[in-house]
């Protein structure tokens, strides 16, 4: 179906008639009563504003009046509200639903994940069961967005009415939904295949939209002399977004993607908000700092499985802490100043929303904030605050009527009102019977009965003290029926009874096993009947969940009736008490969080200190050589002095370290790392992907950063993978553990890009290139295209301002931009390579295009063409000694690095592995072993040489005055295989320390044990304390366990002892 579009202005004129479509009625026209009054209720007109004993008058879908002193129009249908609280109807600020048909053909975007022209208002309305589910939680309106794609389409805000014809759209074009969807496996070759590819695609498409708009302007100003702009529905659909007249909704699935989305929003000046992940608290500060509103799902992780110690091993502390802290997420965001709306989206079971909300409140979210996040804030976010979000005169009559409070445990939602139409959610059974009564039959039986129709229980007390529990107890619309065994009649078999309640007594007939009928009554106990309380017949609401139309089928178990009955009653009470207890016994989670969350996270980001190290062996890797008995001073993150002998400069230092016996080196640098990259290191779906950027997907929370710090690494060149001839742009970072991705970035590092040659890039059979010949050709083609592109822009920029307004501009191409930067020497190529032929090929190609390769990576046959590499001026970043894992590395030799060095190439050793990256010092030692390099020169392979290769040697790589105080303290010579990294410092701040590491371990272990206990309590309830042992301690079994054993003596003591 399509919904009706309701103009805001129409709504605002309350007297206007309803815009019902005039579909022909088959038969008699139904009356459509549109004037209602809810009277005598507590009305929360807005968060924090409550009127007791108030009434609301609704006319024609709009709130006509609200207050505690109203004249109720006589024509109004009255809805008693005693005991009820009326809230503004809840608004779900972001639901994602599947889009049935993605536009294709003329005007569609080439990429099937880009379809901003989708308008949810044109799509089928959310189906009636979803609307019903939402209503049952108190929702009256929801913003609905497409669930899949990158640029997905515009949302719509709809009324969650029951009847299709009433599902109108409050806002036809809500925000533009954007997501980071991407493929991931090598099997489905559609771009983007990585997170960074998705980001690049969003950026490129937004630039395309800007370009398209510019072309349209030129065309519309004067079409003469111009080819008309191509039809581009997708780009057209973004025109409001790039003008900031339509907001965007970023669907972000973790705390890092929120920050990535915010970067895009800043780049394009978008009016943005997030559909969050529920784990924003893990990077709260950065996310709140974006200033963007967040629609927060109340999604809490499943309770981790920790019952068996081995299974618990698989659960990280980070997961446990996330489980514990997730209910604090919304509260923490609000406390930190974020604008927060809530959504039922991402919940595994949507029906858990209210209990999740209750949990958030128990973890500190205020009820007013919760209500605002479900009413006024989403109304504002959706631009609908003039017509909804509060209970005020003139606003649409969207209400939720709750018995008691919306925020209590198991709230009882009674009705939702949507555009002034009541939608019943739940209702009590009209009648219930609870209490004690007497069953009498015309066969002379008279027995006391316990009856509870809410629980569908009926128990007869026989004279001998035993009990008979009735089966299939159904009480529905005044009528009671049940089955019981014939003991009460001293008959074997089942007796069926059915009766009707009139004037407090059930009168009916039963059928004996032989078919004979009898009459019976069940009447309330009177005083004469003993001390039993009278039956309690009332038209009071029953506990929520009672549906008088459901047949409750309790007690159909086969357990012994006589023994269990009383106990069961107690059991139920106990259960209730336990539930109550659970509500009380909340163990508040720690308020202070570590970053990153989990083991080895820090409460405080390390701060620079002034520091003095004396009496150490200092490997400067610079002009100072190796200084025995040396000292080093650092202030404000920079090295201020280095020397040898006694330190005589004086001055105050926050920390002095006696380095006797210790060795100090520059922080190690890994020129080829894939640590800390989110969402894939390869955008492998295309041969040329220079538009993607590792810098977009840096993950500062990767635990391997910490492990690498523990090996003395302080900086890394994060590279794209080697799946394509021209891969993505790199990211050069310092390992500022606990910081954000932005903290990690070395901002003044020159940009780089990954290229790759050889086996990896030619193995996709359905993709060019398939040969090393093709590799050369496609790289040549790309640079040729980049040169042409540059020329187009140069011509355009050289135009006079006036001419430019009459000329369609060239389209900005992020892929070619990066190649232009290479051609102009502003971006360095880091090229994965093995064989000498391909190395030489790229050198010649680069020379032809007039640029210099930054580094050859791996370059395992570099030793065969070292003179060419040296003459070209490229660096070589190689493995120390890997070989033989594939055919193109069969000629790799561990002498590669030293031989290239000897011929004049600038050489570094890299890891390409998060494990190896923590042992780069001993990698350097291999240059001593294989090729006899001097030790100080060898250490440069992992310090100043990679720094020079990355053009960051002005800051790091050696210990020299004025450079960053990035250094490592070692237990002995860093080239010794026995050396341990004891401390790692970056910019004068200590990021790793063996002692501190021990403290972090203890903390992590204690936290794990605390959380495991908490999880087990959450799963199984509180354990019984030891003071009251339930049973006698079990004695050890008298005999050995019955295990078949051939020979009780361990037979192998003799087998290993020849030399012992």
């Amino acid at each position, binding site marked *: 179906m399509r919904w009706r579009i309701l103009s805001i202005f129409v709504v605002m004129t309350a007297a206007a008639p309803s815009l019902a479509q005039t579909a022909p009625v088959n038969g008699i026209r139904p009356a459509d009563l549109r004037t209602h009054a809810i009277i005598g209720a507590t009305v929360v007109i807005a968060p924090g504003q409550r009127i007791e004993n108030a009434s609301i008058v609704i006319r024609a879908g709009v709130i006509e009046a609200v207050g505690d002193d109203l004249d109720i129009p006589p024509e109004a249908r009255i809805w008693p509200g005693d005991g009820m609280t009326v809230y503004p109807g809840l608004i779900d600020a972001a639901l994602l639903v599947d889009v049935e048909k993605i536009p294709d053909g003329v005007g569609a975007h080439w990429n099937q994940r880009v379809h901003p022209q989708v308008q949810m208002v044109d799509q089928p309305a959310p189906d009636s069961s979803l609307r019903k589910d939402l209503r049952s939680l108190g929702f009256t309106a929801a913003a609905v967005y497409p669930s899949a794609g990158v640029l997905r389409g515009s949302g719509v805000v709809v009324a969650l009415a029951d009847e299709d014809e009433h599902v109108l759209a409050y806002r036809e074009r809500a925000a533009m939904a954007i997501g980071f969807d991407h493929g991931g496996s090598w099997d489905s070759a559609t771009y983007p295949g990585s997170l960074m590819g998705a980001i690049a695609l969003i950026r490129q498409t937004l630039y395309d939209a800007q370009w398209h708009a510019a072309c349209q302007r030129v065309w519309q100003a004067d079409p003469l002399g111009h080819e008309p702009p191509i039809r581009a529905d997708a780009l057209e659909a973004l025109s409001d977004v790039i003008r900031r007249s339509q907001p965007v909704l970023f669907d972000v699935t973790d705390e890092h993607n929120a920050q990535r989305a915010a970067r895009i929003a800043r780049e394009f000046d978008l009016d943005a908000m997030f559909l969050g992940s529920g784990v924003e608290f893990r990077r709260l500060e950065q996310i709140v700092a974006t200033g963007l509103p967040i629609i927060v799902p109340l999604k809490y992780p499943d309770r981790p499985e920790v019952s068996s110690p*081995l299974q618990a*091993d*698989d*659960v*990280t*502390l980070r997961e446990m802490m996330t489980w514990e802290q997730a209910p604090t997420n919304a509260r923490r965001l609000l406390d930190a100043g974020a604008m927060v709306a809530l959504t039922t989206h991402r919940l595994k079971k949507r029906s858990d929303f209210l209990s999740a909300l209750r949990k958030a409140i128990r973890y500190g979210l205020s009820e007013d904030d919760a209500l605002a996040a479900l009413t006024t804030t989403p109304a504002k976010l959706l631009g609908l605050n003039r017509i909804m979000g509060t209970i005020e005169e003139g606003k649409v009559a969207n209400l939720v009527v709750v018995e008691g409070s919306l925020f209590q445990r198991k709230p009882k939602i009674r009705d939702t009102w949507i555009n002034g139409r009541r939608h019943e959610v739940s209702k009590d059974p009209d009648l219930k019977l609870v209490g004690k009564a007497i069953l009498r039959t015309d066969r002379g039986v008279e027995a006391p009965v316990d009856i509870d129709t809410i629980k569908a229980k009926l128990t007869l007390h026989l004279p001998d003290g035993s009990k008979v529990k009735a089966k299939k107890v159904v009480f529905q619309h005044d009528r009671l029926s049940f089955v019981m065994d014939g003991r009460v009649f001293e008959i074997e078999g089942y007796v069926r009874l059915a009766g009707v309640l009139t004037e407090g007594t059930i009168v009916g007939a039963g059928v004996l096993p032989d078919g004979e009928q009898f009459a019976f009554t069940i009447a309330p106990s009177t005083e004469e009947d003993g001390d039993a309380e009278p039956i309690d017949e009332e038209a009071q609401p029953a506990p929520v969940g009672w549906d008088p139309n459901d047949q409750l089928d309790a007690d159909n178990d086969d357990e012994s009736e006589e023994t269990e009955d009383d106990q069961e009653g107690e059991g139920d009470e106990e259960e209730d008490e336990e539930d109550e207890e659970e509500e009380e016994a909340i163990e508040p989670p720690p308020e202070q969080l570590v970053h990153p969350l*989990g083991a*080895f996270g820090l409460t405080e980001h390390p701060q620079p200190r002034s520091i003095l190290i004396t009496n150490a062996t200092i490997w400067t890797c610079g002009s100072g050589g190796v200084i025995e008995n040396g000292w080093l001073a650092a202030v404000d993150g920079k090295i201020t002095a280095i020397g040898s002998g006694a330190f005589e400069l004086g001055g105050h230092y926050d920390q002095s370290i006696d380095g006797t016996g210790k060795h100090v080196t520059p922080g190690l640098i890994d020129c080829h790392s894939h640590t800390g990259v989110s969402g894939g290191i390869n955008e492998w779906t295309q041969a040329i992907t220079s538009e993607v950027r590792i810098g977009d997907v840096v993950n500062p929370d990767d*635990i*391997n950063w*910490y*492990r690498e710090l*523990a090996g003395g690494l302080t900086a890394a060149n994060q590279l794209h993978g080697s799946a394509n001839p021209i891969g993505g742009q790199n990211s050069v970072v310092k390992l500022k553990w606990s910081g954000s991705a932005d903290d990690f970035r070395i901002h003044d590092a020159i940009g780089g890009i990954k290229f790759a040659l050889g*086996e990896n890039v030619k193995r996709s059979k359905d993709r060019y290139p398939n040969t090393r010949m093709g590799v050369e050709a496609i790289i040549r083609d790309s640079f040729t295209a980049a040169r042409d592109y540059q020329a187009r822009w140069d011509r355009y920029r050289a135009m006079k301002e006036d001419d430019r307004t009459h000329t369609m501009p060239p389209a900005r191409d992020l892929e070619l931009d990066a190649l232009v930067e290479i051609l102009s020497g502003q971006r360095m190529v880091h090229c994965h390579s093995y064989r000498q032929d391909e190395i030489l090929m790229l050198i010649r190609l680069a020379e032809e295009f007039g640029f210099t390769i930054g580094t050859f990576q791996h370059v395992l046959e570099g030793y*065969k063409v*070292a*003179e060419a590499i040296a003459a070209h001026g490229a660096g070589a970043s190689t493995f120390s*000694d*890997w*070989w*033989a*894992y*594939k*055919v193109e590395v*069969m*000629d790799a030799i*561990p*002498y590669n690095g*030293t*031989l290239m060095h*000897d*011929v004049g190439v600038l050489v570094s050793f890299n890891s390409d592995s998060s*494990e190896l990256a*923590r*042992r780069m010092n*001993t990698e350097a*030692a*291999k240059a001593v*072993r*294989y*090729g*006899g390099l001097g030790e100080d020169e060898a250490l440069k392979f992992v310090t100043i040489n990679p720094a020079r290769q990355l053009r960051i040697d002005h800051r790091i790589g050696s210990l020299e005055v004025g450079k960053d105080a990035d250094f490592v303290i070692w237990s002995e010579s860093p*080239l*010794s*295989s*026995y050396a341990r990294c004891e401390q790692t410092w970056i910019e004068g701040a200590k990021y790793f320390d063996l002692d501190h*590491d021990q403290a972090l*371990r203890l903390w*992590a272990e204690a936290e794990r044990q605390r959380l495991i206990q908490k999880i087990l309590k959450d799963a199984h309830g509180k354990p019984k304390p030891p003071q009251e042992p339930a049973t006698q301690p079990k004695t050890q079994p008298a005999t050995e366990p019955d295990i078949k*054993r*051939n*020979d009780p003596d*361990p*037979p*192998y*003591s003799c*087998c*290993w002892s*020849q*030399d012992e």
Partner: protein
Amino acid sequence: MSIHHMTIGIHPLPGRAAPGCRLCALLHELPLVFVAAVAALVASTSAFAQSRQIPAPPQSRPIVVAGATIHTISGPTLADGYVVFREGRITDVGQGDHPQIENATVINAEGLHVYPGLISADTTLGLVETQAVAVTIDHTEYGRVTPEVRAAVAINPDSDLIPVARASGILTALVFPRGGLVSGRCSTIRLDGWTWEQMAIDAEAGLVIHWPRTEPTRRGRADSPSEKEQRKQIKENLEAIERLFDDAAAYIQARDADPTQSTDLRFEAMRAVLGGEKPVFVRASSPGQIESAVAWSVRRNLRIVIVGGREADRAMPLLAKHNVPVVITGLHRLPRQRHAPFDSPFTLPAKLHEAGIRFVIASGSSPAHERSLSQNAATAVAFGLPRGAALRAVTIEAAQVLGLGGSHGSIEEGKAATLIITTGDPLQITTDILVAFIDGRRIDLCNRHKTLYRKYREKYRQLGLLSE
């Protein structure tokens, strides 16, 4: 009396072949045409490369290594010591002046060190040439239960990987079949010989079982089977092992009683293990796997070695109680869990050492990178293992696990003259291995890497970019 004296330079000049590198020396003098032809062969068939090192002839005359520090491993370290060996066996180890022996070759190793050859206790050396080329891989047979296969018979004596391992002092190895539940039988080899038969020390050194997982992996991963399904699979796997051993025992009993019973090669292959003559090498990492395997071996009265042992520190009481040795397959790996200490793989040997559990350190690397064996052992030292224990873990302890405790792993009279002469501590990366003997045969320590190194140094000499 004729004694041949030899001197060994402490640091061979860059590019100069170590003594004994016959082909390197040869290549130097060969016509260019030949070099080119060899290079072409290397380039075109590198996946099926054939080592050009020439196996050594049997020891023909007594050899005395004199003036060196002798690290006997089993006994005290002897400064200014000597080792004498004849016909492949060590006949004398001592200190001070070496005995004058008729017709002996005396190697003056002053300032150098003698160690037993290192032992790689968990490798597929000889069964793999190029990881990425499936046809060069011979370690995993079809089927889940293949005790009948033996590693030794598929070892390529001309693998280019073997001389590379040898050049780092590894002279003995335990080569494993891989995969399935019962992979086959592993073989101990010496790293030199014209044929696999010459290389094999014991082609049937033990049975190899990959112990199945004993705990379900994390639930909640989309592609992982449910916990229930996993438990079912675990049960089936464990029962398959039990069934196999029951069946094998029944078969052997029947066959011994009645030789006309038809033969089953799989069960025949298990005789030595069931009889307690050979151990079962059980690949097991998690505490659950280790505990389950040890309990099984005790119940069945089998000798067992745990191989892999990644989390053996969490099954220490059981390992200690039953004196089960552990081959630690590599330290250079990342901790399995995010919350584990960064050095948890590095400290494992120290923990086992303190608990008195016997262990061996293996490289944990691909066979091409066996040379990382000594670095793995060194890392254990950096993280708390006494250096002597680390050395033992790659020599004598390994020899004992390989069933070669009587013949290998230390410098002792009567043992094989399988030893190395080094510039220093063999666990230090910077230490060179100058000379190696296997059973008294002096081994060619050249390899593909040194050959290529020499070749391309020559290129730069020709270009005038290198002086020597």
